[in-house]
């Protein structure tokens, strides 16, 4: 019988952007078991949220994670709005969708870019990041920031998109479309990418359901669950888009799925810019938040994001709890990594689009 030994990966490791410790049982070059140790960057943000008032928490939740930094305040605001009975003006709803989808394109391109880097295809990594710059510039041009947009507020959005800004945003999207198409072709056909990522880190549908994974990880394994369709929020009900899914459930299918979702997001932004009615973008003043509880959900770039809010009628929440998409996907690594090669570990970890600052909050 071959000898097994333990290979420690992390908490600080060249292939990990954020600290997470993996205790990996290895037999030769093959992974036989996995143990996760978290908690290296725990910030106690849920405790902070209980000390801040409802408006201050919009800013706080935006800082949970940089790539999903629009989904967090948007979902938090939805939870407050449900509880306080606030109706967001329709234009505000459209503006929220635009911000969400711009962030989704940027997040997905970042993830597939890192995948190319981990495969060793650095020119493709740089190309993906360059394409992503179009969206980064769009964010800076429209909202004034490249990461945290500060767009959401309770009862609507902070900034409107006027005619001139809309023209600029359309221009960025037009420039993005052919590049996204080209990028998809490279990721789909390139022999290096295919060899390193196909059949690697497979998560079968039954296991995906058992571990209740969410987002692109679930959809690439055949669980076609997208909050935007299953429990529509903002204006998603009036928008046309296809929920992407796949059955292969490997590293390659997850990356391809993200690229297809980016294409869908581009179409959603276009529809929003076309359909958006004139009118106010936010409510005037602020309704009191009564005692009670509410749940709000959205589809963040990494998957389903859940906010639970409990109010005791004061100006600070009694409890705010949020469950981030990555939280659900970690444990499924046990299945994805079983039997893989040591060299594939970073690729598989990256394929769940891990966010540690989100997970630990």
């Amino acid at each position: 019988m071959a000898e097994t030994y333990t290979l420690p990966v992390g908490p600080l490791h060249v292939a990990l952007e954020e600290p997470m410790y993996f205790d990996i049982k290895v037999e030769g070059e093959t992974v036989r078991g996995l143990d996760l140790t978290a908690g290296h960057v725990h910030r106690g943000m849920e405790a902070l949220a209980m000390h801040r008032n409802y408006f201050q928490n919009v800013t706080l939740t935006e800082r949970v994670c940089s790539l999903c930094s629009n989904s967090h305040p948007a979902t938090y605001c939805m939870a407050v709005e449900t509880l306080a009975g606030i109706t967001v003006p329709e234009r505000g709803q459209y503006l929220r969708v635009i911000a969400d989808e711009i962030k989704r394109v940027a997040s997905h391109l970042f993830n597939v870019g890192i995948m190319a880097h981990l495969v060793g295809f650095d020119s493709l990594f740089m190309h993906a990041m360059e394409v992503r710059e179009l969206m980064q510039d769009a964010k800076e041009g429209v909202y004034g920031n490249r990461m945290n947009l500060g767009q959401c507020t309770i009862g609507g959005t902070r900034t409107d998109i006027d005619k001139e800004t809309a023209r600029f945003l359309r221009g960025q999207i037009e420039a993005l479309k052919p590049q996204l198409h080209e990028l998809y072709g490279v990721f789909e056909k390139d022999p290096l990418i295919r060899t390193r990522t196909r059949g690697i880190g497979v998560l079968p549908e039954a296991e995906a359901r058992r571990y209740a994974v969410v987002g692109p990880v679930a959809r690439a394994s055949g669980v076609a669950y997208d909050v935007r369709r299953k429990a529509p929020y903002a204006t998603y009900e009036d928008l046309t888009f296809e929920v992407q899914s796949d059955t292969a459930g490997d590293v390659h299918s997850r990356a391809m799925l993200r690229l297809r979702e980016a294409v869908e997001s581009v179409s959603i932004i276009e529809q929003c810019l076309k359909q958006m009615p004139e009118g106010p973008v936010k409510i005037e003043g602020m309704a009191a938040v009564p005692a009670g509880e509410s749940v709000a959900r959205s589809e963040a770039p990494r998957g389903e994001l859940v906010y639970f809010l409990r109010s005791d009628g004061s100006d600070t929440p009694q409890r705010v709890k949020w469950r981030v998409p990555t939280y659900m996907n970690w444990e499924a690594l046990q299945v994805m990594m079983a039997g893989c090669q040591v060299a594939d570990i970073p690729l598989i970890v990256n394929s769940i689009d891990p966010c540690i600052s989100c997970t630990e909050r």
Partner: protein
Amino acid sequence: MNEIAKQALENAVGKALGPGAVYWSTDANKNAFGWVKLCDPDALKLVAPHLAQAGARLMTVTAYRNDKFSRIEGREIAYHFDLDGVVITVTACVDSEPPRVPSITPWFQNADWNEREFTELYNIEVEGHPNPRRLFLDKELDGDILDRLVPLSTMMNGASTTTLWEKVFAGKQMPEWATKGAKN
């Protein structure tokens, strides 16, 4: 709103607790949210298998104190499930001392991390948990970090004020205003 899923959840809870146990609400987009209250945490063992059988997915678990500032005793745990777009929240009261609740990992594999997290934040014991280790917090830290929630205002008016002024006026007569915080 998905009526079939809503009915399936209602039936699943009904089998365990009898009819009329679920209260329904909707948000601005007409998405349905069900709310169930359990006075006895052990009733979780009745509800969880039926929800699992109906195909519900555990989304997350939230533990909290009945009263944010610990003025009244007791904790509650809210289990949030989803079935095809419909959310149901099953809230269990945890009044016992020491607080304890049964694990629902036999029916929901992903309850593992959630249960470990509320154990370390609120010191709630989970009976029958397969892997009762710390999740995020270091072993050296106290296990009830959110259970002892101290309001910021209480902390700012705390005894530290007196200590500070005692140092400032060391060896001199303390002015009257500086001794006012002493009773805290």
